[in-house]
């Protein structure tokens, strides 16, 4: 386990699911992935100005093309990839830290 880089942690190991059936692993990853994405969306929302925040939400409320989404992210959230990696790493780090706390 690499304590310097939380991303280098297999979260399935952390939660004792390393040997669980694939369906159970996938169900867990759905839930964990949703938690990560929820945090990521909140982070993006908080970084956008009011007008652009509205545009961000509108883009995902009404049908819009992949091209429209790509253009928005390229212009206003160019570091989306880095933000995603940060959120996944933060999730893993906090999971590890919480597990180590004594009750």
């Amino acid at each position, binding site marked *: 386990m690499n304590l310097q880089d939380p991303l280098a942690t*297999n979260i*399935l190991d952390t939660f004792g699911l390393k040997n669980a059936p694939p369906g*159970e692993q996938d169900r*867990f990853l*759905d839930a*964990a992935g949703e938690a990560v*994405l929820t945090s990521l969306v909140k982070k993006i929302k908080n970084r956008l100005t009011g007008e652009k925040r509205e545009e961000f939400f509108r883009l995902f409320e009404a049908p819009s093309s992949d091209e429209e989404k790509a253009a928005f992210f390229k212009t206003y959230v160019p570091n989306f990839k880095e933000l995603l990696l940060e959120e996944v790493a933060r999730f893993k780090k906090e*999971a590890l830290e919480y597990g180590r706390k004594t009750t």
Partner: protein
Amino acid sequence: MAEGPPSQQNNPEQHSPKKEKWTWRHGFKSSPENPGQQEWNWKHGYNQSAQARGEKWGWRYGYAPPEGASEEQQRQWNWLTGYGVEKEDQNEQRGQKTVRVIWQTSTGALGLSFYGLAKAGDLIKWLLKQSKETADIAKGWEEGQAFAGTPK
């Protein structure tokens, strides 16, 4: 593969009037007249009263830690139930809708192109179960590489 995050797959609002939301969240009520309540309940998060009742591990997502899980692993499951849960605000519903749409959006549309992973949700799940350092993932990302285990 599931079509999206759990909260997308069966919208609790379909069978839960808004006014009852907090009752369920805090009271954990369920009845034969409202068979959707229990399912709705586990989808709507964690709170301190749940802990006090001993309903902590896995409650939010409907299942408990695997049998034989260590104390540390059980604490991690407990932590997961509260991760990202905050008080609702006016943008909560819009944010959740955005989460659901991004989950299904192509990686290319988000500038996240990664060999073999077509949807953002698949990419996030893949990242979660990797044991690779950030630098390695970023490098592979730039070069469009497929790591071992990447679906093709």
